[in-house]
């Protein structure tokens, strides 16, 4: 019998939930005998695709940020290199700062606090429920994430309608508040929490299941309250995961475009988060140079955020190894 198949049979038979995870952060040794060359070979397809279809257009876009290129008009035929002019314009542009501020609110409210909080709360509460309850809630939460953006946008427009929307109908005021006009940021924050909690729920579900049950049992026997258990037993285990999760959803939410389908950045730029701002500048305003520059600024901000998170993750990992 060929050796590979024996190994496979062994692997499939022996795989159980109890494994030995490789500790994060330690240098990996080339146990599989991949070797430099072959590893490069494995990476090549992805690298090729990324190189041509991601890096190239992205760098080009950032280059356009240094020109006054427009999609129509004379600057379309003969764009000039204007160096840092677009950036100067951005730094002095109140609508740009408005957009950044709104994006910050959006990310903090819907991702860092909202999705994280709700995802964790649901994961924690669902641990001890009946299987069918857990499955149903999971199914619904995931469904909200699976449905295509244009569909969910319409669903929420219908929810928040002034005349006859579901929220107003439940509150009993028809016609009631025009939510998307009077509280647009609140509207899109709640929408994004609804939309994206699935990822956090799944992550925390898996993370919580990795907390050794014995520790939880000990805490319960010692009479620790729920809050204390959370703080002393659970958090140390999931801190790394929580940070990774928060990093990913921060980056995703920062660049999220879907709220455009609900409020189009309005009314009067009140919900013009940065992805919508870029869209309005590029497509409605036709100013490709400016939107390219804004894209670079956004990239740098994302980089900054990522670095902050990475440092926190590394600290958390170090703390964990020390305990």
């Amino acid at each position, binding site marked *: 019998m060929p050796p590979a198949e024996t190994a496979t049979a062994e692997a499939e038979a022996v795989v159980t939930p109890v494994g030995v995870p490789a500790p994060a952060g330690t240098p990996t040794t080339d146990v599989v005998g991949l070797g430099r060359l072959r590893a490069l070979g494995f990476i090549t397809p992805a690298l090729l695709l990324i190189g041509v279809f991601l890096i190239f257009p992205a760098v080009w876009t950032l280059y356009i940020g240094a020109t006054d290129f427009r999609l129509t008009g004379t600057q379309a035929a003969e764009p000039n290199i204007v160096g840092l002019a677009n950036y100067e314009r951005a730094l002095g542009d109140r609508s740009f700062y408005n957009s950044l501020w709104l994006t910050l609110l959006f990310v903090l409210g819907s991702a860092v606090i909202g999705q994280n909080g709700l995802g964790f709360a649901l994961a924690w509460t669902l641990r001890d429920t009946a299987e069918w309850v857990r499955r149903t809630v999971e199914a619904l939460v995931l469904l909200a994430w699976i449905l295509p953006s244009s569909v969910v946008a319409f669903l929420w427009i219908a929810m928040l309608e002034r005349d006859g929307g579901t929220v107003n109908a439940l509150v009993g005021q028809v016609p009631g508040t025009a939510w998307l006009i009077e509280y647009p940021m609140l509207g899109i924050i709640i929408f994004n929490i609804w939309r994206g909690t699935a990822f956090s729920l799944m992550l925390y579900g898996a993370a919580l299941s990795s907390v050794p049950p014995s520790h939880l049992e000990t805490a319960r026997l010692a009479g620790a309250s729920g809050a204390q258990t959370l703080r002393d037993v659970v958090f140390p285990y999931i801190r790394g995961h929580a940070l990774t999760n928060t990093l990913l959803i921060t980056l995703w939410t920062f660049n999220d475009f879907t709220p455009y389908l609900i409020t189009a950045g309005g009314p009067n730029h009140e919900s013009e988060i940065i992805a919508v701002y870029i869209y309005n500048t590029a497509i409605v305003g*036709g100013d490709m140079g400016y939107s390219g520059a804004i894209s670079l600024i956004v990239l740098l901000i994302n980089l900054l955020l990522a670095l902050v998170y990475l440092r926190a993750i590394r600290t958390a990992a170090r703390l964990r190894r020390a305990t």
Partner: protein
Amino acid sequence: MHRSIGARARMLAALAGVLVVAAATTGCLGGESDTDSGRNADAKEFTLTIAANAIAGGKNAAGAEWVEKWVIPQFVADQKGKGRTVTVKFQPSGAGDEEYKSKVALDLRAGTGADIYSIDGIWVGEFADAGYIKPLSDLAGADKVDGWDGWSQIPQPAQNNMSYQGKRYGVPSGTDGRVVYFNKKLFAQAGLPADWQPKSWDEILAAGQAVKTKLPGVTPIQLNAGTAMGEATSMQGALPLLVGAGAQIWSDGKWQGNTQAIRDVLGFYEKIYKGGLGDPVIQQDAKGRDKSFQAFAAGKIAILFEGDYFWRSVVEPNKGIAKMADRNDAVGYALIPAMKPGAGIRGQDFVSMSGGGGNVLNPGTKYPQQAWELLQFMNSKEATVALLNGAARITHRQDVNSEVLAGDPMLSMVSQKVLPLTAYRPGFAVYPQVSQALQQATLDVVTGKSAADAAAAYQRAVEGLVGGADKVASG
């Protein structure tokens, strides 16, 4: 030395990227197209494609069906009679205007795509500046283009809508006019006449006041405002008022800034929205225009400024999107008055604005002569009548108008009375942005700023857009 795979790959990719970027962007885009207008003129077999922002079963479905069911079969048959085998394809799209515009710009830029494009009249300027479209006479030959007999049937202002710097870039495809609609039944309840024809802005305000007093729960006036409604705010709201105050948005080399006319317009907005005669919330709604239509159809708005599109597609009894079964009895229409009699442009007592688009040729087309032939075919008298498909609608051809509009008094009125009074938007590349600044000014007023402040802010915005205060009229 030891460089990791990741770092090396990264460097290579970045280097490659920069090199290609430098090469590509300088030698940028789209091949040099053959500029000979007579190329492939003798081809016996060819394919042409028409593109429009219309799609069967969706946006502008009537237009899409016309192309697919009439133009294409008829043209193919017509060409067959001349011994040519032709395939004509239709490239529909149903996207929003701005998205369609971007797509068309990209296609034209690369010199690819359809041979004939349907575009909005206000895009002509910027497309021409960008080199995306060329004068018709350059593409198909001056004698062939100027010699078309259809031009005599198309009024000059309409032709100007598809022209730039004195040259024709496309053939207009329809036009329209704006009027002020009112609900006759609500008027009766408020004690206003069924044949109401206001002669000044004050009369409009007075009628609105009467509605407000006698019919609480009904919004007296719907005058489009704000940026959510986009160009609809300018076309149905600000611009008709502006020409009624005696000024065009651009004239004699200058754009309107903080002038008396603009202040008058914004002052009118102020009187309506601060006087409780209008609904400010709906102006800021992303779907505000649709909601205003539904509200009018439900008898919740008394006076509404809109184009003839409203009559034939919104409140139309059978197929309208906010149909009113009693439209012919309940909906009245009147000319939009100037601020005071004689205060409008050209000294007119009544004013209006018109828009519309047209079809242009793609300079990258392989068959310019044949494409021009198709374009003429699409704008012949029979084709235009076929486009209407029995519906009454204002076309760009006067011979067709006089025939088909006889049965519809409203559209006849527009064709005969409104079109002679109307004005068009300037075909400059920067117009859409100036229009946005104007929409923003109306939004400022609706949300509480004073007309004077809004006008000042508008002036600043326009100065920034058009490159200097010397290009902006103020006072």
